[in-house]
Each structure stands twice: as C-alpha cells, then as structure tokens.
C-alpha cells in the first residue's frame, strides 16, 4: 500500500503541476483571491471557506474535469528507471520498423524537394504575404497548379508495412495447410503476422455493454422521430457540465443539436480567449512562412475532402485549419506517448551539425492520403475555425494519431487490424476463408476504413454517431468491431460474389461457343467444324497404323485447339471457334498436298468440298466482319499448316531412327 500511495502522490503532484500551468489554474487563483479579499472574510475561516466557495461557484466541477481528463489521457507513471524509448514502445522490433518507416517517409519528402525544386520551408516576401492574406479565404479556389504533387503515402503503402512486419521471437503455430510444402509462406490466416495481446470477444462485450439492444441507441431506435427523453437528458448533461457524465451520455450517441456542446464537454475543450489568440498566432506564422507540407495538405484536401459529396462545401475551412495545424508545436507533446517521433530537418547554413536540427514540419506530423477526412466531418457541427481546431486537436492527440504509427498499444493500428482479422476469423470463418480464397483479403477493404476511422465511408450522420461512441468509450477498439459487423451484415452478398464470378466465366464460355445465339454463325461454323474434322479424318488417318492411335491424336489436337481458342476469345473479348476449323483445314491441306494422292473418289470429294466451303466461309466473313477476323483466320490456317510441317518432320525422323535400329 505504501508503494501505491507513493505513486499516487506522484500522480497528484503531476496533476497539480498541470493545473497550475494551465489557464484554468491562473483564473482559479484569481477568482479565489477576489472572493477572499471581500471584507467579511475572516482569516481564520479561509481553510473552511475555500472548498465551499469552490463548490458553490462551480470551480469544483472544472477542476474535477481537468483531473478526469488527465487520468483518461495519461498512463499511470511507470517504474522510474524505465528507459524513455521503452516508454514510447516496449517492443524493439516494432520500434525499429517505425524508425525505418519514418526514414522512408523522410526520404520521399526529400526526393520531392529536389525533384520539384521546392524548398522545405521559406519565408514569404512581404508582397507574397499580402497576396497570401488575400487568398486566405479562398484557399481551395486558388488556381495554383498542384497536379504534380503526390501524397507522401496512402493507406495502401502503410498496410504493406504492417503486413510485412513480423516478430523475430515468434514462431507461428497455425500452419496454412494449403501451402504446407512452402514452409516459408504465410504462417497465419490473416495478413497481420504479429501477434499482440488483444481483448477477447467476451471482454469487448463487457466493455461495450451499453451498445446492447437493451439500451436506447441514437441513430437506430429513433427512426420515427427523436426521443424527447434522451434529448432532455442531453440538455441536463450540458447543464451539469461534468466530463464523465458527458462521456457516458455519448456512449449511446447524441442528437446533432446537442453534439457541439456535449463533445466540447466530453473532450475537455474550452474555447478560452487564449485559444483564439493562439490560433491567430498560428495563422500569422502560416502567412509568414511557406512550407512544403502546405502543398501536401492542399493537395490532400482537393483529392479527398474537397472531392467528397458532403464535405466539398467546407474545402477552404479545412485547408485553413490544416495549415494552422502544421505550425502548431504543441503537438510535439503527444510524441511522448507514441512510438512515432517527429522528423527533423537541418537548417541550411549549418549542415550536419546536430545542434541546428529543427522539427519539420513544426508539428511533426506528415499527412497521408485522406488526412483531411479526420477534420472535415466536424464542419457539420461547428463553423468557427478556432473551435474546430481545438476539437480536432483534442481528437487527434487522443485517438487519431494511433491510426498511422506502428505500435503495440492496444489501440494502435496494428492491434486494431489484428483484432479485426481475429474477430472475423472467429465469428465468420467461412466468409473469411471464402474471401481469402477469392484473393480479396478482408483486411484489404477494412484497412482504409479503420485508418480513416470510417470518415468518408459512412454518411456524415452515421459517422458522427460512431465518433460519439469513440469519445464515449474512450477507445478506438470500436472500429474493428464495426468493420467486422459490416462484413457480417453483407455476408450473403459477399459469399455470392465469388459464385457470380465463376458464373460469369461460364456465361462467357457459353456465349463464345454459341455465338451469342446468332444462328447463321452457328450453322456456318459448326458446319465447317464438322467438315474439317471429316477432311482431317480422311487425310490424316492414312498416316496412322491403328485407329485408337489416330483417335487419341485427333482428340488431343481438338482439345488443345479449343483450349487455345477459348483462352484467346476470353482475353481479347471476341466470340467464336473459327480458329479451330481454320487450323484443322490448314493441317489437312498440308497433309493432302504432300502425301500421295488418295485413290478413293468419295474421299476426294469430301476433301474438295471442305476446301471449297473453307474459301467460301472466309470470303463471307471477309465481307461481313472486320478485316481483323479474316487475318486471324488466315493466321490460324497458316499455323495449322506449319504445325503439320513440324509434325511430319518429327515423324520422318522417328521413322528413320526406327529404320536405323532395325538395320
């Protein structure tokens, strides 16, 4: 107990430090001083009066909220001799992978710099500053050409990193029996190779117990109209102004009218005049300096949020806020809690001296494709950029930063992905197996959902209801749960999909063989096929000694020819089997010309009839179809002819060899 109380003392000290350093601590002190300096206060009573005053004036709740927020966002202090890098990320192989990933990003930024000849950062001239100030309101409409700026990385790239990650001291126990011969192949069913400790389904059930159908759920149980009781409760929650209550309220979702107030409360965001000042400072630094990341943000907004059917309206608001975001050094704080570390750049004049490195961009965060979608949906709640900025900051430093850094944290993207795969395997094994066999791994779809926290994939109303729950439960673990639910919900469609594609090929083959039902084509082609087989029989039969030999040869030839023909048809999107009879006629013609004349008249007639109708059919298609068809026919015939050449030569050689042996 002694140790416990000691660590508690440390915690209390930390919290007191936080409060004293904050705006709140200062105003609180002033308020208490004002109260105590009133004439009727006796010095003896101070100790008794201060708590009463705190309670009566509502300061009490504010302090409680700050303490609560601190406990929510900070992990309990660890053992004092833990090295700092272990605090960031306990597993060294993940730490190294993250470092490699960061290096890769940095490298690609540097390449972009040199390729496009854009400096990482530069100060704007005064005239440019004036221009930029004018443009500020119309950021998204500025005519600057961004065409050649590519996002540094997209979710797909990041997923590759995640799936290539594997633990050095973990041997997979689950073998994939389908490729048991290749021991080096995938050792687990899913794409994520790393095994981390996860919550079991039962634990998740307990955690999300308020999501059960016994409870009222906003967005699901109120289709016929809003639930007035829930609304009243929301009003009460706002009046109470107590963070834990607001958080609990959000677990069941809230209505758009109250979302603004309740989110501010639950996230502990106060929009003090100080934060307005701070935002203006950031804005000023945006005006003053031009960064390379500005272009990245601008381009990202154009490609994602600005191109989204609901968010395009807020294009310039989103750009403005994101530019300020990139200048905010307060974000560097959150790197203490994550495996990621901010990239550094060297100032130009002092190359190589570590003293002169600076964090670049100032907030240490390099955007990826779709970053702006974290911010855009909130424009439906507030239009004041400062409030939006403060909320975005709170949401990012509490949740979203985990979605694009490698870590073993239970809410890190790695755990979330593993959670998704494990859950889908446990509860929908058939579906998982089916999709995997189809070559479309479920995680390939779900990864972008999870990495974007579903922004851009759900309708805004639904998305905000989901984010309600993220804040309410203070965890991102709801994302994989929802992703699994989506798969389970669409199970039937997904299971059918594979069948459909098999059916599709079957239909295609049928269409090829039946000429899409064109009767004339069927008559001509199958007539020709019959004739050419007959002709083939009479010309080729004489070469073989026995009938079974001949039949075997003929059938294997037909088999190969049909296979090649249908393969080509599927590939170039044409229909028909004309290549088959063309090749056969070519083969038979070579046979006919180079072998001694057939004495039987009826055979002669059949062969001539075949050649005649071959010429007629080709002429017919030359007139009706494109030239390409005729060329194909002739090529097929020529190939058949050549094949016979080769075949006869090999025959002759064999015969000679046999003769030599007998001699």
């Amino acid at each position, binding site marked *: 107990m002694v140790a416990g109380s000691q660590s508690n003392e440390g915690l209390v000290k930390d919290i007191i430090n936080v409060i004293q350093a904050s705006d709140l601590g200062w105003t609180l002190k002033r308020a208490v001083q004002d109260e105590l300096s009133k004439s009727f206060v006796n010095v003896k009573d101070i100790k008794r009066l201060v708590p009463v005053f705190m309670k009566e004036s509502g300061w009490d709740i504010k302090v409680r909220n700050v303490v609560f927020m601190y406990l929510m966002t900070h992990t309990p202090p660890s053992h004092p001799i833990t090295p700092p890098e272990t605090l960031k990320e306990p597993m060294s192989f993940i730490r190294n992978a993250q470092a490699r990933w960061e290096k890769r990003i940095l490298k690609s930024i540097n390449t972009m710099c040199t390729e496009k000849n854009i400096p990482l950062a530069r100060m704007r001239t005064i005239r440019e500053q004036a221009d930029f100030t004018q443009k500020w309101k119309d950021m998204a409409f500025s005519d600057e050409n961004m065409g050649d700026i590519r996002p540094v990385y997209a979710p797909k790239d990041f997923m590759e990193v995640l799936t290539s990650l594997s633990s050095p001291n973990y041997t997979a126990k689950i073998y994939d029996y389908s490729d048991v011969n290749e021991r080096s192949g995938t050792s687990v069913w899913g794409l994520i190779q790393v095994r981390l400790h996860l919550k079991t389904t039962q634990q998740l059930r307990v955690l999300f117990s308020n999501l059960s159908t016994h409870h009222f759920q906003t967005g699901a149980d109120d289709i016929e109209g809003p639930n007035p009781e829930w609304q009243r409760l929301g009003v009460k929650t706002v009046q109470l102004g107590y963070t834990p209550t607001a958080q609990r309220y959000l677990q069941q979702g809230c209505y758009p009218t109250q979302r603004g107030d309740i989110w501010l409360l639950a996230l502990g965001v106060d929009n003090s005049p100080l934060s307005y000042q701070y935002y203006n400072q950031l804005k000023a630094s945006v005006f003053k300096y031009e960064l390379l990341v500005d272009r990245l943000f601008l381009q990202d907004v154009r490609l994602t949020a600005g191109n989204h059917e609901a968010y395009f309206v807020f294009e310039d*608001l989103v750009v403005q806020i994101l530019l300020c975001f990139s200048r905010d050094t307060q974000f560097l704080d959150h790197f203490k809690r994550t495996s990621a570390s901010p990239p550094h750049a060297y100032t130009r004049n002092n190359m190589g001296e570590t003293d002169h490195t600076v964090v670049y961009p100032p907030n240490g965060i390099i955007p990826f494709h779709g970053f702006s979608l974290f911010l855009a949906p909130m424009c439906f709640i507030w239009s004041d950029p400062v409030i939006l900025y403060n909320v975005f900051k709170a949401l990012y430093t509490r949740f979203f930063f985990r979605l694009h850094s490698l870590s073993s944290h239970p809410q890190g993207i790695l755990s979330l992905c593993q959670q998704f795969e494990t859950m889908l395997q446990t509860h929908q094994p058939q579906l998982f197996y089916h999709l995997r066999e189809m070559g479309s791994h479920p995680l390939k779809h779900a990864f972008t959902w999870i990495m974007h926290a579903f922004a851009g994939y759900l309708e805004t109303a639904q998305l905000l209801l989901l984010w309600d729950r993220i804040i309410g439960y203070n965890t991102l673990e709801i994302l994989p749960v929802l992703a699994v639910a989506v798969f389970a919900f669409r199970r039937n469609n997904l299971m059918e999909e594979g069948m459909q594609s098999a059916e599709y090929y079957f239909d295609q083959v049928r269409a090829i063989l039946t000429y899409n039902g064109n009767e004339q084509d069927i008559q001509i082609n199958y007539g020709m096929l019959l004739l050419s087989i007959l002709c083939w029989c009479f010309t080729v039969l004489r070469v073989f000694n026995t009938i079974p030999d001949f039949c075997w040869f003929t059938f294997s030839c037909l088999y190969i020819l049909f296979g090649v023909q249908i393969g080509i048809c599927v590939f170039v999107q044409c229909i028909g089997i004309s290549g088959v009879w063309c090749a056969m006629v070519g083969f038979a013609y070579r046979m006919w010309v180079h072998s001694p004349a057939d004495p039987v008249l009826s055979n002669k007639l059949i062969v001539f009839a075949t050649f005649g109708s071959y010429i007629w059919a080709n002429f017919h298609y030359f007139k009706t179809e494109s030239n390409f068809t005729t060329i194909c026919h002739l090529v097929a015939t020529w190939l058949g002819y050549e094949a016979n050449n080769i075949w006869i030569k090999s025959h002759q050689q064999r015969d000679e060899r046999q003769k030599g042996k007998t001699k």
Partner: protein
Amino acid sequence: MYNRSRVNRGENRVIRFKCTLQNTIADVLRSRGWQEVKEESGDWDFYWADVGWMREVFDHCYMEEHMRLNHFRNHYELTRKNLMAKNLKRLRKQIERDSGKIEAAKCDFFPTTFELPADYHIFVEEFKRSPNSTWIMKPIAKSQGKGIFLFRKLKDIMEWKKEDSWKIDGTKDDREPVENYVVQRYIDNPYLIGGRKFDIRCYVLVTSYIPLKVWLYRSGFGRMSNTRYSLDSIEDTYVHLTNVAIQKTAPDYDPEKGCKWSLIQLRMYLLAKHGPEAVETLFRGMDDIFIKSLQSTQKIMINDKHCFELYGYDILIDETLKPWLLEINASPSLTASNQQDYDLKFKLLHDVLTIIDMEGKLTGKEKRVGGFDLMWNDGPVHCEDLSMEGAPNPPYTTNTMLGCYNNREDNLKKMMRSHGASNKS
C-alpha cells in the same frame, strides 16, 4: 367498358403507358412491368407528357375515366414566373381583406416582382424607393437559368432595353414579339454554407385541386453554388445561380461532386448550428409556401380528375432562416446527374406512380405512401401521435417530414402487406 373496370381492379391487363421522355421516368415506368405504346398512338392508360403536348393536343383529346396524365391543363399558372407572381399577389390581397394583415404576412415568401414591360413604371418607382438593392431579370418563358442577369443601376437595364429594342408604349408589328421579363428583388443575404450559396429543391405532388390534395416528398436536395458567394461580382452568374443547368457549364464543374447535398444532410447541419426550434420554424415556413402557392391558383386551375402534377419547388433561405420561394417547375428535371441523384429520382417517381394508383391497390385513406406524406387534404392533415408518452407537445403538428429519414421501403412493404390482408378477409 369491360376493359376499364378490369384496369381499375388491376387484373390481367397490363397497363399501357406512353412517355415522351427517355430518362429516369421511362425506366421507372418499365420497371413496374407496364407496357409501352408506340408514338402517335392514342391508346394509352397513362401518359407522361411534355408541356408542349399539353398545349397542342390536350384540348382535342378524349380521355376515358381510368386514364391518367401528368399535367393539368393550365399548369403554367404556377410555373410561369409572371403568372405565379400575379396569382400570389391576388391571394395576398384576398387574405388581407378576409383575415387581416397578420395572416397576409404569411404570404410574404416571394420577393417583390414586376412584369416587364407592362409594370415598368411601377417598378421604377419601387426601384427609386429602395436604393442600393440588387435586382434580377429573368425571361419569362425560358428555363434552366437562360438569359438571367443581375443589375444595381437603372442604367444597366436601359442599355438592355435598347438592345432588345422594345418600347413601353406600343411595339411595331413587324418586329419580333417582345420578350417578356420579370424583374425581381434579389435576395442579397442568402444563407451561406462554407461561403457558398444554395437553394433547396423539394418535390410536391398534387393529385387534385378540388378538393386540394397535396403530398410532400421527404427527400430532396440542396444545390450548392460552385464558388464562393459575394455581391462584388454580380456579373459572375455562376456565383448567383444554383441551377444545375448553369453550374454544369462552369469551367471547373466536376460531375462526380454533383454539388448537391441531400436534405437530410442539410437538416442535420442546420440543426447543429441553430437548434431544433429555428429549424422547425423554417420547415413550417416552407410548408406554408407549398400550400399558399397552390391555394393561390386553386380557383383558376381547371381541375380534371385525370390529371396530376409533380412540382419541383426551388426555395432559398436567407440569413435569418426565412424561406423564399424562387420558382416552381411543372416538369422538374428528371435527368439524373449521378447515381445518387438517379436513385432519388427513381424512388420519387416510383412513389408518384404508387399514389396515382393505376393498379387500384390503395384504399385512399393513406397518410403516407412510400416517401410521400399527405400534407393537405382539403385542410391541413395532422400528424398521427408520433410523440412518445410523456412528451409535452408533439414536435410536428402537420404531417410533413421534409428532410427526415426516408424509410420508404419499409412503409411500402407494410402498406402492401396490410392491404393484402384486408383484401383476403
């Protein structure tokens, strides 16, 4: 006679339809399994006609009892800009006479409008009375934003006057007939979202004028202007007009974007910004617009039980969240701009056909069919008790749910099931 009764009971015979448009409506009609009849054939049960046909053929055409047509004879009373203004002014005067000024103020939902050249002098008077206001000129007969321009000085239209060569008193006969315009006070404080102006398109179905029976569709959309709104650039029509037809020709128009917000989205946005009371007042105000505008022509409209009409209402909201009626379209654009838009229009038309009820499946007492809510049936239709127990007062007094969740499939299924059950018994 035998045929007709069978059609009415929806047995055996397939309904034959004729449709001159080749877009969403044709798809919907076919998807119901109806049979298309060729052009020039008068042998139809249902005709989705264009306005031109109404003008030329309607009067010489005999219609059997079961036949249905998608326009009223003089539909233009509401949809021509000048006639609409005239009718609304008349209604306003009448209400002021009957029930006093307060009631009449409910009719102030359309901007001051004058017809040119007829009302030129009155317009000039009004213009001089309110300096610094912006006015908008619209040609009466044209649609889709053609020929519209803005001006602030009388000088601007003087020039235009010369160009178009018309005179206030007496035109020469050898000239082409004068192009009539309406001039309207421009609402220069529109509600902006993200700096963009927008207007709302809602769909209203009238199945009969006497008694007036009006249905309102739950879904609709807000059409966003492509660029930031400012009054400095009154030459730039892209800023000021939200017509899709105009926006489509804008240089940076992206069909994927569509520039449209669903009404649900819009409602959510407004709720978050202004709270439920303000939004409720706004949507009530819009209901008033629908009903009052239809009432203004109720007496002059030639009622015909064969006819129905689907109106597209264009409504603008200003900064104070007051709705303004911009225009009513009798043949709203049914060509879809993207998949989402197509889905909306497809479902809308499907529900229209369900209400028209060629198959004889409805009882006639429904308050809701698919996405449509009956809002006026010779008097306001009140909402059934939607409120939960213990609620102080129900949030909706009339039966309109504009911009609410549109669970039309559920409703249709439920309706068909209950009707099926009652038929069997």
